């Protein structure tokens, strides 16, 4: 079977280009460059409604890919197709070199934490993981010892013998992740893993996801609406809107596609008028206006956003300091994934 190697990130259509390697072996140093999941032009319709239109991307071993999109963009449909729960209307995909025609073999290579996974409340965490281990062909003894190791990995050793019905939401998410790892998968799909968790729980779970990619060398697909989360731990990102890929590439590349040239400055409310006067006198800035939803915040456009002059921020700060205005914050727009996401999805909707 042909394996596929990624050639370049981010084609004009937003699809990642792939090239067949015709089964050539790749050395250990290249292992993380091996595409472990390849999706090409996947489409799915529900009657007359097209939920997914031409999804194409690749995922390499040991990398984390963020899967983003507004509600109804087709993320869950994509995950369900790639995890063999749904069949695509057209298109092709393979996981760890296994073609989509062999769903049972694919299911041996993947681990999934679905968005709304239910748990049997009458089972303990240990029993639950052992049960799934046995479904993957492990013997009862092996499944149990593996389940204990997984419980240790996700920090649930102490509660492994308690009924799942007594677990908190965060603990259930951890058991769900442990269940996704029960077969040592090559690709792990995590759909909203931090949904409903407190900040500490979110941090811990993200640490766990990072370990899955780095220590197990598994490819991870992470679906989330929390964009800081994606920006923080993902290597690559695919943004979907209305069933189509609108952008794909590394997080840095995708952020680089955002509109640049806007700057926000925060000052005390009493100094707002003076700040505005100072800024309006500067030749480098234009369209100075207060930000309606943020008290004491002004937004401005740079007169020449494409300029490579990185000293402009310093000159703005210098002017304000000379005027004796206390500066509470300064940030350049278009440097966050969240802003790029909103810009791109707005454009796609229009």
């Amino acid at each position, binding site marked *: 079977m042909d394996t596929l190697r990624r050639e370049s990130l981010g084609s004009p259509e937003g699809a990642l280009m792939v090239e067949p390697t015709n089964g050539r072996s790749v050395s250990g140093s290249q292992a993380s460059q091996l595409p472990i999941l390849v999706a090409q032009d996947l489409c799915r319709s529900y009657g007359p409604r097209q939920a997914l239109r031409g999804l194409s991307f690749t995922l390499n071993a040991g990398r984390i890919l963020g899967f983003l999109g507004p509600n109804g963009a087709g993320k869950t449909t994509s995950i369900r197709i790639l995890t063999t729960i749904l069949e695509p209307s057209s298109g092709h995909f393979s996981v760890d070199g296994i073609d989509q025609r062999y769903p049972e073999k694919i299911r041996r290579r993947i681990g999934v934490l679905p968005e709304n*996974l239910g748990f049997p409340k009458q089972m303990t965490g240990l029993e639950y993981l052992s049960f799934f281990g046995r479904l993957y062909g492990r013997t009862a003894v092996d499944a149990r010892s593996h389940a204990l190791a997984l419980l240790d990995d996700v920090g649930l050793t102490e509660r492994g013998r308690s009924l799942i019905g007594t677990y908190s939401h965060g603990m259930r998410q951890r058991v769900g992740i442990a269940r996704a790892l029960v077969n040592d998968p090559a690709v792990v799909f995590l759909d909203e893993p931090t949904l409903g968790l407190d900040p500490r729980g979110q941090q811990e779970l993200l640490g766990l996801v990072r370990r899955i990619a780095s220590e197990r*060398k598994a490819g991870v697909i992470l679906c989330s609406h929390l964009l800081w989360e994606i920006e923080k731990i993902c290597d690559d990102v695919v943004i979907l809107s209305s069933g189509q890929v609108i952008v794909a590439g590394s997080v840095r590349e995708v952020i680089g596609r955002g509109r640049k040239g806007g700057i926000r400055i925060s000052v005390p409310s009493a100094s707002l008028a003076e700040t505005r006067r100072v800024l309006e006198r500067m030749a480098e800035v234009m369209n100075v206006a207060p930000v309606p939803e943020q008290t004491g915040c002004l937004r401005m456009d740079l007169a020449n956003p494409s300029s490579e002059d990185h000293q402009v921020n310093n000159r703005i700060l210098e002017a304000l300091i000379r005027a004796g205005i206390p500066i509470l914050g300064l940030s350049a727009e278009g440097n966050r994934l969240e802003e790029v996401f909103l810009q791109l999805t707005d454009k796609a909707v229009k």
Partner: protein
Amino acid sequence: MSAMDRPNQDRVSTSASGSPTWWVVFTRELSELWLGGRALQLILIYSILLGLYSFLLATNSELKLMPLKEMVLEMVKAAIAVSLFICLIIAADSVSGERERSTLEGLLLTPASRRQIVAGKFLAAVSPWPVALAIAVPYWYAVSQGDPVFGRAALWGAVAGSLLAPALTGLGMLVSIRCNTIKASMIASLVPYLLLLIPATTAGPSKMYESYALWYRNQILQWLNPMAASSHFLKRVLVDDWHPDVLWIWLTAPVMFAGLVLVLLFHYGSPSLRLEAETAERFRPYWERLATLWRTAGFALRSPS
């Protein structure tokens, strides 16, 4: 060594080396049913009902309102009907219940084949029958009051129930595979159950028919209904003392029904086991058209012209 520290080592080795999938699913379902208490509750209700019914029949016997053999027959029929109902509702919950509790997706994401998952669930759903039979036998013995009819009741009651239990369980599972909610699958499986049960329980003593044609028609209708056919068989064997050799034709109906249901379940039903049942979506346009017609007709009838 933690599981996290051993990447890739046994990714491929987690193939079929342990127990068969159907066995793993069956044991889990069995423990959930019996240790979880759901089947136990139903069996407890069944025991109470059977006790009440045998008490009523015993009271009738004292009043000489019903012959002993007919009393035993009624007890056998009641025990079979209630235990079939238990199997049916457990089967009707088996897939749609998992859908509703969002636990089905986890199961479908494993490499287990759909057929093996269904087989494991089917065996667990049919498990209340032997327990119900074991509970019923002492009641049958008590009601028969030492009469030799007890031996025939125990043997042929077990045979008839063992043929009908997998059939009704399979029927419940077929419905469950096609329904998204427990409520829908319960209603959809109770309808055929009642359609089979009512003719079987309301069939009175042998009537005189005006013509052979009418008699034949009645016999064929009775034979086509597996529960009525079993009921007829039990009546002839237990009450009329007929030899089972001349009645085997009446057992072919439950055998054929069980065969048909199991073929449908494992050949057509299991492969179509999905995360969401497609039936509801498929029939939606028809329901919508019907609702529009209904509204139009209502509007036309209400309009003064």
